[in-house]
């Protein structure tokens, strides 16, 4: 079962003409000579926010955390939990309300502070209590943290909550040095210290963050690089150009359209189907949206029928994304096997539109963040939908303002994605449940609410998969969202080998080596 899911992901990726299916670690095809030491320069697509795991929110910060801030758990290629700072997988009590975690022994933070149960408790308590903690909600089910002994902690939950492990494999499980926390407090992010292969050196706002190899790291023998520098280069073309000129060693999120050329130029490109999705969120509250889509499931269906996901993929993304109609990524173990998408059928769509009795064309205002790719996607969708009788007008708004409008429900349709989580709960709860903060579509369906909350409290994989399957079916009936695709991300490598790039699309440099 599990294997099969992974294979689907792999085949999907392989069919996209390119290189390796996410492999750990990547084998460099060229037989270049390895150089000892050196500093790897990594180009990120954006500037990370604060490097404080308690408050950090950006995806790129997660990338940077892997350099210096290990977590209790990590995820593998199937997005399953593997221990990192924990000694083994968490042990959940029968009622699901206590979780025991054994910790690695005898390891040190990068400032020499011993890593132990106290340190873990301090971090988790901070995540639970700090006003501005973005982790609070992720750990909502966690009631208290108890130090059992030097190397064991026990978590007490208010309700059974199976996504907890996944949360501890993310920023909520990143353990901070108590010494650093004590000195810096709120400003921990300005000079963060955790357990990790590299240690934070300095940060040049707007430009780069520098790390050097840690002397205290438990696996320091495996670490070959002298350091890592993360540079922020927002323009993918420039990331590509710099990669070509070997100004940088690694570039994340390259343009699909650049991949061929880069490959020809001798740059290795790794790709992974990202766990996030892109979709069209439809405002289903007729009091907020004047578009007939708000009140008509049939019209929403017609809209979905009008969209040729494969064409969209080919035209906008050079065939590099994974078209899909559910939020869960293909490599995820909990994803149901029997997903049946509503395929492109313009005749059926036109028939539905005409049957709706609305005056044609049917007006739809499509809110999009003003970014080139979104704009292009929107233009393609506009043409497809207009073809069957919709009148789509595009309203590009600068990203932050667009989120504001989305949150306020001030749109008919919103082209917005979700970065994805290891656990399906993170991809559905709050996004599709009544009153959820990110429930932009204003969906309120008690059945969906029930299925999603039930799935989170069940621990067994099969049962969860089944519940999520039911939820997705129900969601498909209501169509508050038209899921479009999962992004494929491309990681370019120049003169470097041994970079891990796995299912969560976060490159790791622990074992990387520069080549000549």
């Amino acid at each position, binding site marked *: 079962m599990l294997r099969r899911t992974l294979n689907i992901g792999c085949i999907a990726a392989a069919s996209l003409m390119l290189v390796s299916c996410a492999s750990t670690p990547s084998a460099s095809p060229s037989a270049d000579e390895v150089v000892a030491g050196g500093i790897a320069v990594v180009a990120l697509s954006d500037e990370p926010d604060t490097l404080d795991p308690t408050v950090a929110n950006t995806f790129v910060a997660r990338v940077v955390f892997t350099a210096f801030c290990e977590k209790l758990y990590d995820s593998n290629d199937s997005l399953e939990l593997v221990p990192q700072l924990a000694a083994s997988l968490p042990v959940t009590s029968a009622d699901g309300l206590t979780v025991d975690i054994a910790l690695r022994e005898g390891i040190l933070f990068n400032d020499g502070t011993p890593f132990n149960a106290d340190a873990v408790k301090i971090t988790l308590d901070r995540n639970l209590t700090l006003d501005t903690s973005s982790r609070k909600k992720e750990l909502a089910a966690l009631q208290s943290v108890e130090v059992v002994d030097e190397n064991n902690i026990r978590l007490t939950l208010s309700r059974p909550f199976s996504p907890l492990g996944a949360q501890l494999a993310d920023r909520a499980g990143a353990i901070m040095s108590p010494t650093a926390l004590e000195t810096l407090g709120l400003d921990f992010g300005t000079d963060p210290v955790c357990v990790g292969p590299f240690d934070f050196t300095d940060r040049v706002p707007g430009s780069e963050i520098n790390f050097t190899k840690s002397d205290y790291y438990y696996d320091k023998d495996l670490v070959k690089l002298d350091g890592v520098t993360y540079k922020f280069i927002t323009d993918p073309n420039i990331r590509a*150009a710099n990669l070509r000129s070997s100004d940088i060693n690694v570039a994340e999120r390259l343009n699909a*359209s*650049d991949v061929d*050329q880069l490959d020809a130029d001798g740059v290795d490109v790794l790709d992974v189907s990202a766990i996030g999705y892109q979709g069209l969120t439809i405002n289903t509250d007729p009091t907020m949206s004047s578009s007939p889509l708000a009140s008509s499931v049939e019209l929403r269906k017609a809209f979905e029928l009008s969209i040729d996901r494969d064409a969209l993929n080919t035209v*906008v993304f050079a065939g590099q994304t994974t078209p899909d109609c559910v939020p869960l990524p293909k490599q995820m173990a909990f994803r149901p096997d029997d997903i049946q998408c509503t395929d492109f059928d313009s005749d059926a769509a036109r028939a539905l539109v005409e049957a709706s009795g609305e005056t044609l064309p049917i007006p739809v205002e499509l809110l999009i963040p003003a970014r*080139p790719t979104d704009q292009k996607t929107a*233009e393609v969708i506009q043409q497809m939908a207009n073809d069957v009788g919709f009148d789509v007008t595009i309203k*590009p*708004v*600068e990203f932050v303002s667009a989120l504001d409008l989305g949150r306020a429900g001030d749109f008919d349709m919103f082209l917005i994605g979700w970065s994805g989580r290891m656990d399906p709960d993170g991809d559905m709860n709050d996004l599709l449940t009544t009153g959820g903060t990110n429930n932009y579509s204003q969906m309120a369906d008690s059945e969906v609410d029930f299925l999603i909350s039930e799935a989170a409290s069940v621990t067994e994989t099969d049962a969860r998969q089944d519940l999520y399957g039911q939820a997705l079916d129900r969601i498909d009936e209501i169509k508050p969202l038209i899921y479009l695709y999962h992004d494929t991300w491309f990681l370019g490598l120049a003169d470097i080998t041994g970079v891990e790039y796995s299912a969560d699309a976060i490159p790791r440099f622990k074992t990387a080596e520069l080549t000549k």
Partner: protein
Amino acid sequence: MSQKLITAKRKTVSSIPRPRWQRVVRRFARRPMAVTGLILVVGFVLFALLGPILLSDPNQQDFAAILQTPSLAHLLGTDDLGRDVFARIANGARVSLMAGVMSTALALIIGITIGLITGFYRGWVDVIVMRIVDVMLAFPFLIFAVGLAAILGASLTNVIIALAVSQVPEVIRIARGEAMAIREQEFVSGAVADGARDGTIMFRYIAPNAMGAFIVQATVAIPAAIIGEATLSFLGLGVQPPMSSWGIMLTSAQQYLAQAPYLALFPGIAIALTALGFNLLGDGLRDVLDPKETR
């Protein structure tokens, strides 16, 4: 001399103003650069007006013909969605010219009115207006326009407003300067001696005589506004798709710089040529309308 006058006796007059423009036109026609500028501007105006009628639909996507290099079927090639670049440039010409001309016109109307009033009355009105102008001028044009466009939201109207507002202080300064200079001329004192009202003086005496300066300012401001529109669009603060604007075309072209450089080339050339046209026209008009030379 006085003898000659007697022949015209008892004839009353009905004013027939002579076309003073004839001379200006003649002087203008003698400047090849200025004429080139005029041709470019008129060319682009016609292109903007007729292009969308004569050419194919600029928004028609053709997924079978993506990123095609220039050919007979698509003179300037196709873009990333298989749309005809030539048709889109024609469509973009409308946006560019509209943004350039409308924002400048708006700025001129507001700026001239305020500038004439402050330059004419001076005193505390002038002090306050000039302080505000100083503050506005202290903000670099682009920061001001970007800020305004971000606050107002992206749309052609808002771009026009943002560009207009950011031009206003310059126009006020010019109009005020003109008003203050012309006010000192004796014919204005003559008008006061005639018993003319302030409004009459401002709009019958001062404004027409400052027209040259305003026209020249317009030709300087229009290309700047066209580039401004392109820049705002480039930064994602411009018009809405599928309306094409040269700036937007350049933004998306940026992604294909290596594969399809012509995508970046043609809209840029269009911007540069239009701006060049207005600049040449402006230089020509400046020469022709320069009071030093008309004397």
